[in-house]
């Protein structure tokens, strides 16, 4: 069998640069949040639309409050989804709630949509005893088995081929589920991205590769990340279905992802979606964008705010009002602050959490190390307030929750 499909023989030498593969951008809402003329209203019912919108507003409020908390020194680190809420939440809403999500780290909106509680967010952010990850990872590294959201890993793009593998398992299980994996246009430069796409089409895996092309990988602009027309045309190299979508248009993102899911689950066609958006905030609390981009550029994108656009659409349909908006904002702000206070007061994870989960059981050699550590902390309890507190010998006043 030929290794290339139906390649015609030609006698004229011609090099191609792929310019014929320039992709259009699918959009339903214009920049003001009004449906483009002449198109059918999307099939998004009122309850679902409001569910999406509330998750977007919640994510924005959470990000604002937690970044402020980080600035006050209450939190060691934070990272916002701001500007990308429509891409993340619009896509999540198009899936079955049991489909797997393997995210990069800027997708807290997906968890918000699926019902991760404010306390669950806070327990992870403050690394307290109720954090599912036992206080081991930096803030924003959420995970939820119940909500089918794989625990975040900081190394970039590692989740992308894992999504291909996870989805292959779902295909074998035959229960009609798929996996979506989110990543940025920077992570798409990693070898893992290419490995993942190739394996997905070779093995016909029900996986959706969702690229949040937000313009920057920390300070590196997309123009220094790739020379091609974005990330989307790479799909052709793997014979993968692909669509580019306006990532700040929640209706377009939702529609595209719904169809992608159908292709993946019903036809075992993996799909690449490139959502064009903009990281309105800094990369993280450790970053200062004034060192590499202009206020003017940021302002131009602020006008395209995905929440503002969806709100206009909802209000035009009489599904939402300013009064409801204000009430919701006030409630979320209050709930976040109250939850934060609760989470801060919780004790740190127990000392044993240092050595559990390395393996299914603690190996003897590690147990010996732990016993020596415990004896050491008993000799110097004042030097290890958290360990001492865990051992019940705490007499210090260290503020809790700080990392």
């Amino acid at each position, binding site marked *: 069998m030929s290794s290339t499909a139906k390649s015609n023989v030609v006698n004229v030498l011609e090099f191609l640069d792929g310019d014929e593969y320039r992709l259009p951008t699918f959009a339903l809402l214009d920049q003001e949040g009004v449906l483009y003329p002449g198109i059918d209203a999307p099939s998004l019912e009122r309850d679902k639309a409001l569910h999406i919108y509330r998750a977007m507003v919640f994510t924005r409020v959470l990000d604002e409050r937690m970044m402020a908390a980080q600035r006050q020194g209450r939190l060691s680190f934070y990272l916002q989804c701001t500007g990308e809420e429509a891409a993340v939440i619009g896509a999540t809403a198009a899936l079955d709630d049991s489909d797997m999500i393997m995210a990069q780290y800027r997708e807290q909106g997906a968890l918000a949509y699926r019902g991760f509680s404010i306390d669950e967010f806070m327990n992870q952010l403050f690394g307290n005893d109720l954090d599912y990850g036992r206080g*081991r990872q930096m803030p924003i590294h959420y995970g939820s088995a119940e909500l089918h959201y794989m625990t975040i890993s900081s190394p970039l793009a590692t989740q992308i081929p894992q999504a291909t593998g996870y989805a292959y398992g779902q295909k074998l299980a035959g229960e009609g589920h798929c996996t979506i994996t989110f990543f940025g246009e920077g992570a798409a430069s990693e070898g893992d991205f290419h490995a993942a796409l190739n394996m997905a089409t070779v093995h016909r895996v029900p996986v959706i590769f969702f690229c949040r092309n937000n313009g920057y990988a920390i300070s590196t602009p997309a123009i220094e990340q790739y020379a091609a027309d974005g990330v989307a045309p790479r799909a052709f190299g793997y014979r993968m279905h692909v669509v580019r979508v306006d990532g700040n248009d929640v209706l377009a993102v939702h529609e595209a992802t719904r169809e992608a899911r159908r292709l993946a689950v019903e036809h075992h066609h993996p799909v690449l979606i490139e959502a064009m958006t903009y990281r309105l905030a800094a990369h993280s609390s450790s970053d200062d964008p004034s060192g590499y981009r202009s206020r003017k550029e940021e302002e131009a994108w602020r006008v395209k705010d995905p929440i503002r656009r969806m709100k206009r659409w909802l209000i035009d349909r009489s599904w939402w009002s300013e009064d409801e908006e204000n009430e919701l904002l006030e409630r979320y702000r209050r709930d976040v602050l109250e939850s934060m206070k609760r989470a801060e007061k919780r004790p740190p994870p127990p000392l044993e959490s*240092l050595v559990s989960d390395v393996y299914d059981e603690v190996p003897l050699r590690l147990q010996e190390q732990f016993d020596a550590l415990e004896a050491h902390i008993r000799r110097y309890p004042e030097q290890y307030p958290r360990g001492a507190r865990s051992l019940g010998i705490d007499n210090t006043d260290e503020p809790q929750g700080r990392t």
Partner: protein
Amino acid sequence: MPTMNMLQAINNALDMAMASDERVICFGEDVGTFGGVFRATSHLQERYGKARCFNTPLVEQGIVGFANGLAAQGAVPIAEIQFADYIFPAFDQLVNETAKFRYRSGNLFNVAGLTIRAPYGGGISGGLYHSQSPEAYFTHTPGLKIVVPRNPYQAKGLLLASIRDANPVLFFEPKRLYRAATGEVPDADYQLPLGNAEILKEGNDVTVLGWGAQMTMIEAAVEMVENEGVSCEVIDLRTLLPWDVDTVAESVFKTGRLVITHEAPLTGGFAGEIAATIQERCFLYLESPIARVAGLDTPFPLTLEKEYMPDQWKLHDAIKASIEF
């Protein structure tokens, strides 16, 4: 003599290397306009242009593979891996290529000019993936040199020597000390020798050995035990590969005791290699078992980071136990 922190000293060394040799090229993620996420490459693009200091796409195996090819061509690449935790996609390029370029070709080709810089280590609330000390994965790789500085003066001199050394060098920078460590650094161009440990303090009872950020823990522990009447000889290994066995052995002949510390997990850590070699050399002179004070055999934690760290109190107790054995 100007006072600099470690980042300024590294930036100064890179600047000097680029000024003195136009074959020197700096690149990596965010190193261009922005000057690196820690600002170690600040202003280099302004001064030397985009062809010699630039952002790469976000792909570590690409960065090191590109650096290998560039070095083989005769340039002097200084590639930055943003965090040592993210060096692993480049493991194949480093272990199978960088380290073996010269050997496999009978020196028809080599990557002599190559230097890879990477911030390593914990104590910055970085959790699993911004805290690791991966040096031991690479000390198992003949063909690489591995250098770790402890302060700004050392960082400048060792980095310039690494850049100009005729072998590929992995230069691990203790990021906990990037801004915390300050000191006098000469304006002049100077190099400190690779492969030489440095005795920081002479003493008679016990030799205490480390490198990089652990030297601050050693300093604090030694102050404590000296107040209790113990005389310590303190050694900074500085170069892990190839390491200075003679200096360490000479010291242990004198003191009869050795305590080694690193932040990386105990099992398979570089202290094990040092302990094995020194017991071979100094067996009849040892007064107590060689002690290792290292991280737990676990991934790096976050909330309980302080408990995990091989700190001055753990070192203090290990030194005392060695004396009282």
